[in-house]
């Protein structure tokens, strides 16, 4: 538990983070009470279209086609249902949510449903007048990603010329309008040394919050692991710097950090537990317990086009597949930490061991753990490779190649 989530006697804090794998985090009692009947956070991936092509993207390789995206009315219905069932925060994301011409109507529906409305954007296409309109309709918070603090490297990572100046402009408007700003810093090998510069940037922009989000290896990022995995030493240095900065900047800047787990001994409590407090709706309306869940082939997902959101949350087969702890195998089943880390991440277990019921290989108790750590260290020690950029052409290419899983220890 971070400093942020500690109780002060009268108020407890639960984070409802949109980052892949973070989900809901807070003390067990409060989280259980808040999430008893409904999730408190919903990530609405409005589209997979995006002007940027970042190789660290955790969207699935197979990007959803425009023709399959939910209609305006379908998204507005999702917002109303979410408000009614007890969701408190909505993250409008993608892809790039601003690509949707009906973002205004969706924000209005979310705001009218009483949802705290977050816009997660790359900001390169957002105009001042449009932002003003969104704020008038009830937008509560804007999060802008910066691919690096150095403009040249940022533009290389995102594959979008002139991106940095556009992002700086939008960030300025956000704070001018009195709207809280989060600077999102997606961290990996090609920008990990910029962590201190990100802190300075966030302060300069008047951000309320900075998200140091080490890449999590799903979707495109899994494919690009070799180009992304930082060295153990750089990882450690970045974590130490953030911990020091957090203390120094108390009351000035909130810093959230999503740490990489390839070098960890204990797995992350992925999503705060499968189907415990967070849900995800894909551009085509599929409802997922986490945004990488489609990588588990045995799961079947309900769609908001054919079933009520609340029924899906309570009774959907994908939600019940790994809810609680009864699905666990050894070593999770008899583990003292099973109610703390929930066995880690099902999607990572699937990707690396071929069985989503296995312990996440990030756990030192997993027979696959040593190989995972070796893989990370080996990749990080090689000269950096180039990204496979996230775009439809590369998607077609990547879908043809098949990923192989790790081998367990003897």
């Amino acid at each position, binding site marked *: 538990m971070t400093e942020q989530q500690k109780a002060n006697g*009268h*108020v407890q*804090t639960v984070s409802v983070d949109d980052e892949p794998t973070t989900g809901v985090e807070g003390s067990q009692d409060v989280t259980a009470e*808040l999430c008893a*009947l409904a999730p408190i956070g919903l990530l609405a991936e409005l589209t997979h279209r995006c002007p940027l092509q970042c190789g660290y993207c955790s969207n699935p390789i197979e990007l959803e086609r425009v023709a399959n995206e939910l209609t305006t009315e379908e998204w507005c219905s999702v917002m109303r249902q979410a408000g009614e069932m007890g969701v408190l925060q909505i993250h409008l994301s993608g892809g790039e949510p601003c690509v949707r011409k009906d973002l205004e109507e969706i924000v209005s529906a979310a705001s009218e449903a009483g949802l705290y409305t977050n816009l997660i954007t790359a900001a390169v296409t957002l105009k001042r007048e449009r932002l003003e309109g969104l704020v008038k309709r009830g937008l509560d918070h804007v999060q802008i990603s910066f691919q690096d603090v150095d403009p040249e490297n940022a533009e290389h990572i995102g594959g979008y010329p002139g991106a940095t100046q556009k992002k700086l402009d939008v960030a300025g408007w956000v704070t001018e309008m009195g709207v809280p700003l989060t600077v999102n810093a997606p961290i990996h090998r090609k920008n990990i040394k910029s962590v201190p510069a990100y802190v300075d940037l966030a302060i300069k922009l008047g951000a309320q919050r900075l998200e140091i989000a080490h890449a999590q290896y799903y979707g495109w990022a899994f494919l690009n692991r070799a180009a992304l995995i930082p060295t153990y030493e750089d990882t450690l240095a970045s974590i130490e710097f953030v911990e020091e900065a957090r203390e120094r900047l108390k009351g000035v800047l909130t810093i959230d950090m999503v740490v990489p787990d390839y070098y960890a001994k204990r797995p992350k409590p992925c999503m705060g537990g499968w189907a415990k407090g967070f849900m995800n709706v894909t551009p085509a309306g599929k409802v997922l317990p986490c945004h990488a869940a489609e990588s588990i082939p045995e799961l079947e997902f309900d769609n908001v086009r054919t079933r009520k959101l609340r029924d899906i949350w309570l009774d959907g087969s994908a939600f019940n597949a790994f809810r609680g702890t009864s699905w666990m195998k050894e070593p999770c089943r008899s583990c003292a930490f099973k109610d703390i880390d929930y066995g880690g991440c099902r999607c990572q277990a699937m990707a690396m061991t071929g069985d989503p019921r296995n312990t996440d290989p990030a756990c030192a108790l997993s027979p696959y753990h040593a190989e995972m750590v070796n893989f990370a260290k080996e990749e990080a020690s090689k000269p950096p490779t180039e990204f496979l950029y996230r775009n439809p052409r590369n998607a077609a290419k990547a879908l043809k190649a098949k990923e192989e899983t790790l081998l367990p220890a003897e």
Partner: protein
Amino acid sequence: MTGETPPPRRLMVDRETKPKLPPYLKLRHDAGRDRWVLLAPERVLTPDQTAVAVLQLCDGERSVKEIAAKLAEEYSAPVDVIAADIVELLQDLADKGYVKG
């Protein structure tokens, strides 16, 4: 240099502080859960009754001393104990960026 805005500083709450909530914080009664929640960027805070009573008085006009006096009367409790409790509560929230002076 002149003309530059000074860097933001940590608010140190004392009895003279006139606390207010920034506009982006939403104190809301959640009917479904029958409890108060404070909504912030990617956070849900769960204030208890005492915290709700304090937060509802944080209007940027009243000082901590005045808030304490008002609550001491309402709850017939010693004002010093209440004031100390409020300072601790608000300092914690200020350190998270949720209370401004």
